[in-house]
């Protein structure tokens, strides 16, 4: 009913942005409450926001065809994609620390150069997994990218076994966030676009 009313009064191109901003509320709550995590949230959010470009290469036309308010020229992507990734990055990075009131400090057993290599290896494994799942196994792009982040996560856990528990709990916590926000977010973002891929 609410969706029907929204459809009647809100122009189509606002829905994706609106759905993204619903997720942004969660990001803002964590950001405002946990001052100690702000700097890190901004860093990881900025980095992950770059993955908004994957809309053009992976998702658009294969998974869905969203309607953007701020479409980028020459690309099948919009500002909303970058904003969505920005919020995902910050929430995913800080969710466990926020819920369990964990306070982090600089205390890595690896030096910066080694950490860069681990991150590079992680991205390489994740990227390879996407293409392997999609082109060799024929799995839809949404599951391919999902398995890619799981594969990347496993690489990280190989080097930092102490993060196994937080990672698994983070998986569950994000499910909770999606359950709380996802329905409204999906209702806002998805009714007016075409989904083109299933499992």
């Amino acid at each position: 009913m609410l969706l029907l009313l929204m459809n009647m009064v809100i122009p189509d191109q606002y829905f994706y942005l609106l759905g993204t901003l619903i997720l942004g509320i969660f990001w803002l709550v964590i950001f405002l409450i946990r001052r100690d995590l702000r700097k890190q949230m901004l860093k990881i959010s900025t980095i992950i926001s770059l993955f908004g470009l994957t809309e053009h290469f992976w998702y658009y036309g294969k998974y869905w065809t969203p309607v953007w308010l701020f479409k980028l020229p020459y690309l099948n992507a919009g500002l909303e994609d970058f904003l969505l990734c920005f919020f995902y990055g910050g929430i995913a990075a800080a969710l466990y620390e926020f819920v369990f009131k964990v306070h982090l400090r600089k205390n890595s057993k690896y030096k910066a150069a080694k950490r860069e290599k681990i991150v590079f290896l992680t991205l390489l494994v994740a990227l390879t997994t996407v293409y392997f799942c999609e082109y060799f196994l024929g799995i839809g792009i949404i599951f391919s990218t999902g398995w890619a982040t799981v594969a990347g996560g496993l690489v990280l856990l190989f080097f930092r076994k102490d993060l196994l528990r937080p990672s698994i709990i983070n998986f569950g916590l994000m499910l909770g966030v999606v359950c709380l926000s996802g329905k409204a977010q999906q209702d806002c973002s998805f009714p007016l676009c075409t989904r083109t891929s299933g499992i």
Partner: protein
Amino acid sequence: MSHLSGVFIGGVLLEEYFWHASMAFGIGPLFEVAFGYSDR
């Protein structure tokens, strides 16, 4: 037809939830490894 719709909606929800949760699984540790943080 309704059965097919149910399967489609179920599939959409499954892939949506899996995608969201897997992002958290991968990005969570990425944050701590990349910036060298630990709670210990």
